[in-house]
């Protein structure tokens, strides 16, 4: 496993973490698959047809992500990492190949079935937060429960949303509108929203892209904390030093995985609670 130089300088100031858990994430070749993997893709291909030109955004991606992993998917723009995220996020379907989420093949599901999967098993965090404007933090966090097929009573919804907001350190901000919150706080509301259905997979697409360094660190600390609690997190980013917060780094280029290695010098975000 070749360790690239990228990120090494950025990590210098942070205490290196000799993570005992790293032993649980051996290099891909030796990974044990005793537990059902959260993500298993086999020869995933996605072809976009633009006029007469065919673009192979994904060109045979096979990847396994086990429960409790924290994987950073890296790559330049056009590398296929966004297409990969859309497919593993059940927003899109592969042209060929198979994708099993939590042991269930979801690559052939129709729109409504995928919506149900997204609602129950996946928590999205986006670069631009994607909170509903003029809707309180609490209501934003409750939103996925509205569409849950089992249905939730309003009081139950509010209680769960409060707990999730507390988990991301936003107690007391329940009734603030997104416009009254800072970028970091908005992103933490988005994380709380992603958490509310207790998803199998947290999928973060450039979650720090709109944030400054300090706030980025706070947000990444939340992801690390969630991962420490056992959540499987897949982080899409093009910033090497953000990727260093993960335990495993997968690099995409031209629609293929060109590198898959543990993050040896894993950054630990400041241990203290992020300040509001």
């Amino acid at each position, binding site marked *: 496993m070749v360790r690239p130089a990228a990120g090494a300088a950025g990590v210098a100031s942070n205490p290196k973490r000799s993570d005992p858990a790293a032993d649980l994430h051996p290099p891909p070749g030796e990974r044990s698959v005793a537990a059902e993997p959260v993500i298993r893709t086999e020869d995933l291909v996605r072809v976009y047809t633009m006029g007469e030109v065919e673009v192979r955004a994904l060109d045979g991606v096979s990847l396994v992500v086990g429960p409790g992993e924290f994987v950073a998917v890296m790559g330049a723009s056009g590398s296929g990492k966004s297409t990969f995220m*859309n497919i593993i996020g059940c*927003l*899109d379907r592969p042209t060929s190949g198979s994708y099993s989420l939590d042991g269930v093949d979801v690559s052939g599901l129709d729109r409504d079935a995928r*919506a*149900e999967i*997204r609602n129950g098993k996946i928590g999205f965090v986006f670069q631009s937060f*994607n909170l509903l404007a003029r809707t309180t933090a609490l209501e934003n966090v409750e939103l*996925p429960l509205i*569409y849950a097929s089992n*249905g939730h009573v309003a009081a139950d919804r509010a209680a769960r949303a409060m707990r999730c907001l507390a988990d991301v350190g936003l107690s007391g901000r329940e009734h603030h509108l997104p416009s009254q919150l800072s970028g970091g706080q908005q992103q933490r509301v988005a994380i709380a929203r992603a958490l509310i259905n207790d998803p199998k997979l947290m999928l973060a697409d450039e979650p720090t892209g709109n944030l400054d360094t300090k706030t980025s660190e706070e947000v990444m600390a939340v992801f690390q904390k969630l991962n420490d609690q056992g959540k499987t997190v897949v982080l899409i980013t093009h910033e090497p030093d953000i990727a260093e917060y993960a335990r495993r780094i997968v690099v995409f280029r031209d629609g293929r995985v060109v590198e898959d290695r543990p993050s040896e010098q894993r950054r630990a975000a400041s241990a203290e609670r992020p300040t509001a």
Partner: protein
Amino acid sequence: MKFLTILKVGLKAIARNKMRSALTALGIIIGVACVIAMIGVGKGSQAAIQSQISALGTNFLMVFPGVSTQSGARIFTGESTLTEDDVAAVKAECPSVAYVSPMSRSAGQVVYGNLNWGTSVQGVGVEWPFIRSWNTSDGVFFGDSEVRSASKVCVLGSTVATSLFGDQSPVGATVRIKNFPFRVIGVLETKGGSTVGQDQDDTVVAPYTTVMRLLKGKNKIDMFMASAVSQAAVSQAQTEIESLLRQRHRLMPGQDSDFMIRSQQEIAQTADQTSHTLSLLLASAASISLLVGGIGIMNIMLVSVTERTREIGIRMAIGAKGRDILTQFLVEALTLSVAGGLIGIVLGVGASRFLAWKAHWSIALPPESILLAFGFSAAIGVFFGFYPAQKASRLDPIEALRYE
């Protein structure tokens, strides 16, 4: 539970854009109000016509002269083939006929002092008040002797009386009709507008003999009226008059009659049909404004879908299905149209009441027309809201999330 929550989401979106929602609903409000008011006016005039006709007496017949067949073509010659003797014979020999009144019609200026009033002058017989169920409110009606001697007496309709005499009683005064002096002996009760909107009180009634000989210089009556003993006897009376007159006019079987009998029922049917057509016309004109209101809803819903593309993307990403989004936007459209419909009903009923009070139009507001307008507005919400809602529900979440 889920539906209720999505309903709330739709309602919140409406509440957020208050001005826009109000203006959109206004289209429906105006449409529904127009439909209600126009149906009210139409139905009202229909009811008014019916009540006037029955007040007029549905048991009277009018006998017109002068239909003759010349070389196969039936034409109204205008030449009177009816005589006073025919009228007397009908009265005497037709058992189903209660009253008869020869008629001679003219028109002219009625002058009193320095005031004058152009009106119709009806020459009638003494039984005319019974046929029309129209009594005098002041003074008396003329009798047989005035008719026989062709006296220059007259009874004024209330409009003419008010125009020439104001509040004073005209009884005993002398007015000039076509320069002949007539003594006013009575004033008729106020009857109001006729089926065709004509002021029935704008008339002067005089003995038919006087009108016929003095004012028109003729010896023949224009037509006559007859009333049947009861409403049920109308057609019987019609048959009796027809056979009697054919006999008196020596018409062979198979030959066309040289007169024409119209019953009030036929007239009523015609008038009813006319007003029915009128209400249909009014309602369809109003429906167009409702349609325009519906297009307004569709327009604003399309705008709303476009500007909320990102919101739709977010909702879909976190698990909203196509039909959840469809429901949300349909609820919005439906709420706008139904709220507009309800306000429109209130306004429409108000406008109808206002017209009834201010313009003295007769207004009828059948509950089924209100239900119809309400149902129609809801249907418009679904119809015009469906396309934008469906458009929203079919958005691709990836594209929608990227939308700026």
